[in-house]
């Protein structure tokens, strides 16, 4: 049995390598077609984030919210719930944090920071929880409802950023800056990497413990694996449509809050663009394992940082990263790839 398990996880890893390899290959082909200086572009794409400590720190910093959104998606997936509203939840969480920080400019950080974080977690948990509640009570498809709610919220947050909360001293579409006491400590200057990386890694461990070593985590996973079986086993399956969505939403809100307090210090229009979608990719690469989310998020941050560095130093646009991302999405769940390796190993080829 142990042998089979080992072979299974080896096949999974090989499958993952193939998926990521194909995605990077497509990327290189696209650069060769689209760029006038493909050599330089490819160099800046792959080496940019690693050769320069400033870029490297920024890459790790960009991984922080991705770890959080990845965890949020993974928890929901573990319970067989789809939270497609991540984009709106991150954005709303960020706005909430900014709003609290701007409303309480004099407060001490010992009170202010927890308050700003709690506000973001609370509002986004409520948003995702709403979709969970609809699912629990009336069996409304949470995948579609969470997406639609999120899309409406993005527009409403846009309104607040460009309307009532807009910084009157600038033409940029942004709120004013939050007080300095709210800002997280930088740990890798001159890059913008901040202390929250350590907390976020701690949170991943905590979630790992919750899912795999607590009773509720066990019930949540069983419900996700087989709802009917769980129900016959006496598990109150209904609550596991609501709880994972609340946790998922809360983590997305936290991602928004951390981006504001750690990196941006203000909430500008579209600051969270892509974090929700990337969270889904991160969770899938990690196979919904909370600890796997950390390297998966760093990988995604690397792709984004690479695209950014290639855009600054060469002639491609950053959206090329979303094509790579889509290839990962296309292949990451393709069972045929994994089966291929299982088959080869059973036959003793690999």
């Amino acid at each position: 049995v142990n042998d089979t398990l080992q072979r299974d996880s080896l096949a999974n890893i090989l499958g993952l390598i193939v998926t990521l390899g194909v995605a990077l290959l497509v990327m290189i082909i696209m650069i060769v077609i689209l760029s006038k200086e493909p050599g330089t572009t490819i160099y800046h794409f792959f080496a940019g984030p690693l050769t320069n400590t400033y870029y490297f720190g920024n890459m790790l910093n960009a991984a922080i919210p991705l770890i959080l959104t990845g965890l949020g998606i993974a928890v929901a997936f573990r319970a067989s719930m789809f939270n497609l509203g991540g984009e709106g939840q991150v954005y709303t969480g960020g706005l909430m944090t900014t709003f609290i920080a701007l409303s309480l400019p004099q407060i001490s950080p010992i009170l202010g920071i927890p308050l700003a974080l709690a506000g973001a977690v609370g509002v986004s948990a409520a948003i995702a929880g709403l979709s969970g509640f609809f699912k629990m009570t009336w069996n409304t498809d949470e995948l579609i409802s969470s997406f639609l709610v999120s899309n409406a919220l993005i527009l409403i947050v846009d309104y607040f950023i460009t309307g009532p909360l807009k910084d009157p001293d600038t033409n940029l579409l942004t709120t004013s800056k939050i007080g300095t006491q709210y800002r997280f400590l930088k740990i890798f200057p001159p890059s913008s990497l901040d202390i929250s990386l350590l907390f976020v890694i701690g949170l991943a461990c905590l979630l790992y413990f919750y899912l795999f070593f607590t009773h509720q985590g066990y019930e949540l996973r069983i419900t996700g694996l087989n709802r009917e079986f769980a129900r016959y086993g006496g598990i109150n399956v209904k609550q596991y449509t609501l709880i994972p969505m609340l946790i998922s939403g809360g983590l997305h809100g936290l991602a928004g809050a951390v981006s504001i307090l750690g990196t941006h210090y203000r909430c500008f229009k579209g600051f969270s663009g892509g974090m929700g979608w990337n969270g889904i990719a991160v969770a899938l690469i990690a196979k919904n394992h909370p600890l796997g989310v950390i390297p998966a998020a760093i990988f995604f941050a690397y792709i984004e940082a690479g695209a950014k560095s290639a855009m600054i130093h060469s002639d491609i646009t950053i959206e090329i990263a979303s094509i790579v991302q889509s290839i990962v999405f296309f292949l990451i769940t393709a069972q045929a790839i994994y089966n291929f390796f299982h088959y080869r190993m059973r036959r003793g080829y690999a």
Partner: protein
Amino acid sequence: MHNTIFTFPIIHNAIGIMTPFLLAGIGGLMTELAGMLNIALEGLILIGAFFSVVFAAATGSLFLGVLLGIGVSMLIAYIFGAITIYMQANVFITGLATNLLAGGLTTVLSFYLFGTKGVIRFQSLPDLAEFHVPVLGGIPLIGDIFFGHNVFTYLSWLIVFLAYILIYRMPFGFHLRGTGMNPEALRSLGLKPTRFQLAGILMSGFTCGLAGAVLTLNLGAYVPNISAGRGWIALVVIYLGNKTPIGVLIASFVFGLAESFSNYAQGVTNVPADFILAFPYVVTVAAMVVFSIIQHKRNLLRG
């Protein structure tokens, strides 16, 4: 664009606005009947929108542009379908992949071909002809509903009719629905469920390509992310329409009306534009929740 000879401009505009919902809804219905929730509609619309207007401008022919736009949309739908079906991937995730690919590909190509990530205007494009009938067009309600639209709107009605025939009167439709209800039964007839699933997805590529063409050719321009959630609303339309072509037609009209009304409200009130833009999403969620409450009650009554 819309003249004032119509008695109820809100209803007249609703008919025009509903066309992309209706087209995407009918295509999505085909996939839905084959037992797959097709969340790729949004991306397929975007692909159709971008490529039809680009090809129309390049060839100088609206017809060729639409044809090639549909072609690219079906090609992407084929990639989506083939990976999902033959490589046994999760249809939600590959659907998301299609949407991401559409967003990335259109932006990258727009930057590469036109040097901009913003709005692209095509000056040389011929206008879409509208079908006006002098006296009949002035009849209240009937004139508003039936006349003064462009060719896509009439084409969409034809497609609803054809979909109805296909689903309920042709062996293909029986097999398609059989695929969704009981793929084993289909297999026992010696048929391959995967073929019908792929056919459903290709049909959604066709109608979404057309839906996208409606958006850009009407405007004579490409606006980034012009699909703007229509694919998602079309998904809800399928549910609210009880998974029938006629139901999709009625539900599309309701959403057309909601959007037409919010366009009107934008002109006469001073509600912020962002709230007006959010309105269709709010209506869609509300409609979805109400629908599921009704379904839930019905299931309870049945025991």
